[in-house]
C-alpha cells in the first residue's frame, strides 16, 4: 500500500546532479550549510561535498548556550569526515541580548528566534563567501510545518525537500553519514531534552506512512480510515498539513493589477539560467 524504500544509488545521483546543476546555473561554485549535528544537515553536507568537492562546502556551526554539547560534537564529526571548511558562530550573545527586553518569552518564541538568527548568519556568509545557502528541510517536516518560517526553512536550494525523514535516514546510511548521527533521536535542540517525536506525538515511521499515502498516493482521509488506520491520527496529520500550507507559499499578495507575481506573472525559477 505504500513504499518508502529508496533506490539509493539513483537518488544519490539525482540529488548530487541537482546540487551541481542548480549551483552552477546560478553562477556559483560553493554552498553554505548550517550543521546542527543532526542527520538532515549532515546528509545535505555529504551530498554537496560529493557534488561540488569538499573545498566548495562551508559548514557553519551555530550553537546556543543551552544546545546539547553532543550536537556540536556531531557537527564537527561531519566536518572532519568530509574535510570541508567550517566556522563556529555562537548565537548566545545576540539571542540573549534580544530577550533581555522580553524576558517572559516562552520556549517556542526563543526557539524560533534562534532559528532565524541562524538564518541571518547563513545568508550573511552566503554574501561573504559567494555561495548559495543549502537547505536541509525534509518532506516530512515541510508537510507538517515542523520548522520555523524564514528560519531553518529558508534556503536557496534544497536537495532533501522531496525525501521523507525515514528516506533521509536510508540515504544517509548509504552515503556513510556516521552511524551515531543517523541513529540518534532527532531533535530540533531548541531546548534541553527536546525530541521531535515527543513533541509531535508520533514516530517518523508512523507519520511518513500516512503522509506518503495522503500526498504521494492521493488517498483521501476517508480511504485511510476505511483501510483501518487510526482515525484520530490520520485527521491530526491532515490538519497539520492544511494548517501549515502558508509556510510553503510566498506571502499572499492582494491582487489589484492585471499581472500579479505568482498568480498570472509566472516564470520558472530558473528563468535566464
Amino acid at each position, binding site marked *: 500500500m505504500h513504499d518508502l524504500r529508496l533506490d539509493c544509488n539513483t537518488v544519490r545521483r539525482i540529488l548530487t546532479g*541537482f546540487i551541481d546543476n542548480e549551483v552552477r546555473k546560478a553562477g556559483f561554485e560553493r554552498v553554505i550549510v548550517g550543521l546542527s549535528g543532526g542527520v538532515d544537515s549532515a546528509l545535505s553536507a555529504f551530498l554537496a561535498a560529493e557534488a561540488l568537492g569538499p573545498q566548495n562546502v562551508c559548514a557553519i556551526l551555530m550553537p546556543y548556550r543551552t544546545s546539547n554539547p553532543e550536537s556540536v560534537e556531531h557537527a564537527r564529526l561531519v566536518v572532519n569526515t568530509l574535510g570541508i571548511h567550517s566556522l563556529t558562530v555562537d548565537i548566545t550573545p545576540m539571542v540573549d541580548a534580544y530577550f533581555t527586553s522580553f524576558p517572559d518569552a516562552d520556549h517556542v518564541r526563543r526557539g524560533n528566534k534562534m532559528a532565524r538568527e541562524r538564518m541571518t548568519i547563513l545568508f550573511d556568509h552566503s554574501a561573504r563567501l559567494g555561495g548559495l545557502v543549502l537547505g536541509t528541510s525534509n518532506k516530512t517536516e515541510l508537510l507538517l510545518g515542523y520548522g520555523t518560517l524564514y528560519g531553518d526553512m529558508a534556503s536557496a536550494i534544497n536537495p532533501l525537500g522531496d525525501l521523507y525523514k525515514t528516506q533521509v535516514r536510508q540515504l544517509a546510511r548509504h552515503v556513510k553519514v556516521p552511524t551515531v548521527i543517523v541513529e540518534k533521536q532527532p531533535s530540533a535542540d531548541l531546548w534541553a531534552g527536546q525530541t521531535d517525536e515527543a513533541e509531535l506525538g508520533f514516530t517518523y515511521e508512523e507519520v511518513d506512512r500516512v503522509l506518503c499515502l495522503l500526498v504521494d498516493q492521493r488517498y483521501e482521509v476517508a480511504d485511510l480510515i476505511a483501510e483501518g488506520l487510526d482515525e484520530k491520527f490520520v485527521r491530526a496529520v491532515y490538519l497539520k498539513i492544511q494548517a501549515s500550507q502558508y509556510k510553503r507559499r510566498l506571502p499572499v499578495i492582494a491582487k489589484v493589477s492585471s499581472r500579479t507575481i505568482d498568480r498570472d506573472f509566472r516564470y520558472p525559477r530558473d528563468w535566464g539560467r
Partner: protein
Amino acid sequence: MRRFRLAVAQIAPVLGDVEKNLALHEKGVREAISQSVNLLVFPELSLTGYFLKDQVPSVALTAEAPTLDALRRLSHRVAMVVGFVEEAPGHRFHNTAAYLEGGEVRHIHRKVYLPTYGIFDEQRYLAAGGRIRAFDTALGRMAILICEDLWHPATAGIAAWDGAELILCPSASPGRGLGQTEPFQNTGTWERVIRAYGDLFTCFVVYANRVGYEDGACFWGGSEVVGPTGASLAKARYLEEDLLVVDVDAGALRRARVANPLLRDERLDLNLRELQRVIRAQGGTPELAGDGPGG
C-alpha cells in the same frame, strides 16, 4: 524504407535561450555527421527548454524563421528532427517538432495532447495541434508524435495505419516517483509503452528524451530505439548527455510484418464505426474540428 544510420541527441537544452541551444544543436549535428548519421532526432522543445511558462511568446519562432537557417543548411548533410515553440497564424503557440531534410522543413508536427495535470501546465500556454500524419522522407515513411501524444495509444495506431515505418518521439520527460530498477516510476512506463508499440504496430519507435534539470525537475534521459518486434535495439544512458547511434534495417521491418501481419489485418472501418458510436453515446459529434490551415 532503406537501411540507414539513426541517432538520438540526448542533450540538456538551456531554458529559454534559443541561441545557446542552436549552438548545442550544431555541435550535435557535426558529431552526427562525423559518424555518418543519416537522421538525428533531438528531444521535445530542444531549442527552447521545457518549463517555459510565461516565456513561451518570447522564444516562439515560425517554421520559416531565419533562426533555423543554419540547421536547414546542415540538413543537406543529415536529416534532423528539432523541437521549438512555433508561432502559428493567429498568434497561436504550439509545441512543435520539425523534420528538416535537404535544406527544407519537410514536415511539422504540433503536439496534439498537451498535458495539464500534476507537474504539467501546457494547455495554459500552448495551443493543441489537430493532425497526426505519416510523411515520406528520403529514408522512409515516418510520423512524429511528441511525448504525451504517445501516452494516447490511438496516436501511434493512426501513425502506423497511415504507413509510418518509424515513429519518432521527441520527449522532455521529467522523472516522477521513485523507481526500484529504473530512475523513476514513469521511466518504467515509457519503456513498456515504446516496446509494446514497436511490437504491436510492427514499426521502429525512436524515443528521444532529454537530460538536465529545470526548477528542480530532473529529465532522466534513457533515450531508446525499439525495433519492429518490440526489442530494444539501443539505449542511451540515464541522466547523462549521450549520442545514441544505431543502424536500422529495412529487412527487420519486412520480417516483422511477415511474421506478424497485424497492420494488414487492422479493420479501420470497424474502428471508425465503433469510435463514432462511442462519441455519439458520449454526446459528442464525430465531426472533430482540426486546428485550421497547416494544423
